[in-house]
């Protein structure tokens, strides 16, 4: 059973379009992280959200943590080909020690 459900699984858009990726769970997390993975590389952390309702911005990327800390979203404004990659959300629970729970990932392709 996947504790974190990401949607959509695949997304192909044109340069300049906006998009939103969702990460949903029935469980409450202490925090949620977003990673981006490029081909042939390991995931790299983009942001961590900790407080329910928190919004963080990273240039054209906006991350939001749900009020109940069960879900999160990643919104990209005016997508560029350099945004292409696999986006992974990962939830952390203090009761699970050092482990993270990863979503299945969203493969984003931005066409020029």
């Amino acid at each position, binding site marked *: 059973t996947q504790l974190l459900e990401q949607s959509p699984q695949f997304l192909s858009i044109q340069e300049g379009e906006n998009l939103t990726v969702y990460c949903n769970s029935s469980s409450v997390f202490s925090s949620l992280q977003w990673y981006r993975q490029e081909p042939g590389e390991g995931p790299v952390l983009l942001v961590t959200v900790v407080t329910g309702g928190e919004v963080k911005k990273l240039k054209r990327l906006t991350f939001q943590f749900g009020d109940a800390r069960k879900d999160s979203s990643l919104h990209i404004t005016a997508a560029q080909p350099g945004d292409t990659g696999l986006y992974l959300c*990962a939830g952390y629970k203090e009761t699970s020690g050092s482990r993270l729970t990863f979503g299945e990932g969203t493969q984003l392709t931005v066409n020029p």
Partner: protein
Amino acid sequence: NAGVTQTPKFRVLKTGQSMTLLCAQDMNHEYMYWYRQDPGMGLRLIHYSVGEGTTAKGEVPDGYNVSRLKKQNFLLGLESAAPSQTSVYFCASSWRNEMWLRVAKNIQYFGAGTRLSVL
């Protein structure tokens, strides 16, 4: 400036062969992890370690063994490889410091991966 280094980067095995994947980190992290990544399934935890000399099972441990003899190294072993173990394997590490656990919430640093094919 290396971070987390995995060797080898690619490997092809025949069914029944054995091999060891090496992960080395130079950030003095206490925690280390081995994941496998398969299409549509995200990252699944195989085994992890919370310190030198300790290991624990993750979500999908069957068919794998690990050892953490030195703090900076975490080895993943396949004793008798099976086609179902064809995957991309990632090693990661993170701090243990309690302050960082509360503030950084277990940020993990990943290696570049090992692509393994078992024929």
